[in-house]
């Protein structure tokens, strides 16, 4: 029951590593690949702080075994924007005070990103339903919803002018 040779594409880069099948994807990302953006919150697939994008799906990476991520295409918050080139979602979270402590934010934004890929013009209700797997204990969600709606508008504007 040794280690397995894993190949994945993470934030556009091909990576290879040895991992035990039982290691969780969140630990592989944080501890083997030093991508500490996605957080460990409840460790029980409730809070969504560990949300990453895997093969076009938002997943709670505390509930995916490393072995299941073989050949997967993964995007974490680090793959969405950078400190000097924020993603529209990151910019709007900043603008609209969509965070206080920030612990849920990487998962929230990664989830919101997938939601907007599937529905580029969501209603407020669709945003709330779409982020219902991500808990925030600070904001009361109001500003998170505002930020996501503003990011949707901005992303659509950017698409039109492109």
């Amino acid at each position, binding site marked *: *029951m040794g280690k397995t040779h894993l190949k994945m594409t993470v934030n556009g880069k091909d990576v290879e590593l040895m991992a*035990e*099948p*039982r290691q969780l994807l969140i630990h592989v990302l944080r501890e083997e690949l030093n991508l500490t953006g996605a957080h460990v919150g409840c460790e029980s697939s409730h809070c969504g702080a560990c949300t990453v994008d895997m093969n076009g799906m*938002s*997943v709670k990476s505390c509930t*995916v075994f490393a072995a*299941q991520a073989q050949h997967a295409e993964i995007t974490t918050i680090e793959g969405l924007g950078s400190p000097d080139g924020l993603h529209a979602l990151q910019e709007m979270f900043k603008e609209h005070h969509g965070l206080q402590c920030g612990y849920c934010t990487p998962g929230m934004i990664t989830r919101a990103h997938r939601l907007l890929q599937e529905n580029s013009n969501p209603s407020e209700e669709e945003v709330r339903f*779409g982020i219902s797997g991500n808990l925030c204990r600070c904001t009361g969600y109001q500003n998170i919803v505002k930020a996501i709606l503003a990011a949707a508008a901005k992303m659509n504007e950017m698409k039109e002018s492109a």
Partner: protein
Amino acid sequence: MIASAFEYHKPDTVDGVISLLSKWGDDARVVAGGHSLIPVMKQRMTDISHLIDLGGISELKGVSIDGDTITIGAMTTQHELATDEALAEAAPLIREASLQIADPQVRYMGTIGGNVANGDPANDMPGLMQTLDATYHLTGPAGKREVKARDFYEAAYFTAREDEEILTAISFAKPSGGFAYEKQKRKIGDYATAAAGVMITIVGGTCTAASVALTNLSDTPVYCGAAVDALVGSSLDDTTIKVAVAAAVDASDPVADTRGPVDFKKYVAGVIVKKAITSALARA
């Protein structure tokens, strides 16, 4: 929370799964979406030395609508069920229920096969499959067989599936008439305090066919034959609905837990069944 060590297998055919199950017996378990099994493995409440991932088997995926029969592969996810337009057209009850399961992230991973085969009385699809009178398709070392959903559940986590069998698909006749899946839960992601699936067909003001089933109100899903008997043949007047609701509550057998004491659950069951009948009626 890290699971005990296991060996990971990902066969690409059903036969491959069966031969691994036959070889490793009790030490092996299949995993579909993993959102029931992985948390239990992380808490080390189960001992699995061989994990067989069904995620690589294409024949277990997808929805087919063939005339009056709808067949759904076991590895079809809740997200796929909720977003399949042809399925929403043919059996809108499925989308209505799947969108009430867990949360978006869990629905991307969670499958209909895992949901029905696990035998957890809190899962929603087993109750819905009672409503639809679905058939489960199993494959094992002795070949294929079919079991009706209404005969499948024996007790919590005990089902008619043998250890060396897997559930490959579910099928049901294209439903007609009004439908509803109503679920009372404390929050998104929670299991039901009470949930009910109802179908009603009306011809010329008379109810000609009906189906009523409950989720998480006993140690198995409950098909409410007495409630159905009350509805069929009636004009679905208020008195009849009251009798049917009482019959459904009577068929429930909840246990007290963090969702409330028995009396409360039975009360909620009554509210939910009434709501489901009323909204199925409005759509019939």
